[in-house]
């Protein structure tokens, strides 16, 4: 199981949309995917029409406290191959548990999630962690458990501030809890054809090589809130963002060493528009 943390130090950059849609495309491609919502607001959970009562059903909170087995907290979404561990308001209290040395020894507080996910690692090909921007114990757990990070960002000056912050944060994680953590790349979301966004995209793509930048960007698209309203991933809509997320996931798979997911091939075969038909959903 490859664990990918979708994280950034700034909010509102499309972390959840990226996590949900990447997970959906991966599942559509036949991979077994587990999406873990680590945001107490439960935004990723809200993307799916979950019939369970999250106030009583085990969530990421119970997963971390050990009150529930990982398999007990898993919800099958409507999408074949995509499972979810949800989040609810009580996850915001998890720091009380993780910082309490009587309940959770300090030495292992950052490794709890990694340890819990070990139990399901043979059941999934990918585990996507939708993180909060804040630098708390939940995020530390996510970064300790992940093999890779994907960094969604909007191409503006805040992106650079965020990267400066992240480079320090990731260096600390690599130095302490997770030396093998690897940055897969920066994904520009809500992209528009403006001079400023183009300048920032170009500058980050060509001006540095510490944070690789995904060639594929996600264009700003009105279908994203619409999809959310219908509790469906936007990749199941015929729209720009949907197509972009498909192409991004292909690029991600290529970066991970999967040979058959060339973006060029995807474009050549014109699988974008009839992506749903291609996947038998049209």
């Amino acid at each position, binding site marked *: 199981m490859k664990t990918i943390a979708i994280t950034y130090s700034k909010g509102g950059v499309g972390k959840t949309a990226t996590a949900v849609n990447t997970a959906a495309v991966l599942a559509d491609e036949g991979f077994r995917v587990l999406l873990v919502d680590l945001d107490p607001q439960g935004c990723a959970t809200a993307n799916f029409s979950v019939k369970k009562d999250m106030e009583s059903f085990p969530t990421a909170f119970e997963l971390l406290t050990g009150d529930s087995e990982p398999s007990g907290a898993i919800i099958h979404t409507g999408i074949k191959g995509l499972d979810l561990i949800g989040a609810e308001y009580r996850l915001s209290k998890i720091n009380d548990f993780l910082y309490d040395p009587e309940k959770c020894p300090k030495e292992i507080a950052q490794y709890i999630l990694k340890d819990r996910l070990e139990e399901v690692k043979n059941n999934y090909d990918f585990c996507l962690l939708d993180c909060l921007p804040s630098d708390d114990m939940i995020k530390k757990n996510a970064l300790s458990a992940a093999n890779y990070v994907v960094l969604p960002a909007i191409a503006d*000056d805040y992106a650079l501030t965020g*990267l400066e912050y992240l*480079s320090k944060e990731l260096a600390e994680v690599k130095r302490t809890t997770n*030396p093998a953590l690897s940055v897969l790349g920066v994904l520009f979301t809500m992209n528009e054809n403006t*001079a400023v966004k183009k300048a920032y995209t170009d*500058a980050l793509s060509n*001006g*540095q090589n510490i*944070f690789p930048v995904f060639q594929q960007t996600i264009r700003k698209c009105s279908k994203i809130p619409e999809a959310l309203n219908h509790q469906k991933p936007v990749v199941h809509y015929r729209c720009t963002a949907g197509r972009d997320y498909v192409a991004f996931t292909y690029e991600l798979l290529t*970066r991970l060493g999967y040979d058959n997911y060339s973006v060029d091939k995807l474009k050549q075969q014109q699988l974008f528009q009839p992506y749903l038909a291609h996947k038998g959903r049209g």
Partner: protein
Amino acid sequence: MMAINLKNLNKRIENVTASGEKLTTLAHSEEVPTKYIIPAQNNICAKHDTTESIQELADSIAASGLIHDLTVNKISETEYHIISGERRFRAVTRVLKWETVSCRVYEHMSDDHAQLMLLEANLQVRHYSDGELLDFYKEAEQIIERMQVKAPQQALAALLGKSTRQIRKYQAIAETLSQDEQRAIASGTMSLNTGAQLAQQRKDKKKPSGPKTKKSAGKKEKAEPIPKMSPDSNGEEPLPNQMSFDGNTAELTGAFEDAAKEMQPEDDIADKDVATPAGYQRLTHERCNGIKTGYWSDANKEELVQRLAEFENAYPSGPNPENKKVSFYGFKDSKLAGIK
């Protein structure tokens, strides 16, 4: 619409790179499939490796295991460039046919940084001759220039484990000598010091005036730019052709060429007017700027002592002070000249 402040943007990117550098210096251990490992494109350290030496290393690895991991720069999940361990890599892939190998993995390190690490790693574990180090110097010098290191000579000296003076020799050779001559030095057929002397002589020929002349000429330059081209060797008094100079460039060029002819390399021991006993072949290296270079074997030292004795017998009162102005440490026109 206001234009984008690119200067500000580039500054911010520089900040990101500077804070991100920390990430590239942190390594972790990983078992990497050998099919994803690519040897460095320009590994000057590996050019002396032979099939036998690799077989020997493979035997050792087969017997004792791989004691030191390879060091690699991870470009992507399927591309790892070797920083250090090309011989080990060849041994485990070509001979032992390993499918994975344990590596210390750095990520997204810049090519220059990785190449510098490759040089450093090899310089730390193997001994290279002065001639071989010339190749290292040339490679490292370019990288350090690109990386805009603040004190490049010191950095190169630290990297190569040499003094800054030695680095200046390499610099003179790399800048002045032809490719063939540099190859001769690298292969050991010409000594580094001979090369450095040759380079210095050529530099001297290009610069017709000595350091002092340059200084005094520089002072005069503002009021009277002409004496800069003067063949005057002491810089104190202008020569007659300068005084009579009336703007005729041909005359000036002539004077310049004469000066160049006069500026043949001088050796303050074997001066032209001191007779050298016939039939002798010179044992010492030609002096370059009065600096002694090279080393003598015991046999050569004995031979030199004998020759000195013969010289003293032939010239009991020493060199004629009228003909010969011997300077302290051989620097002609030095303020220290004449001090014993």
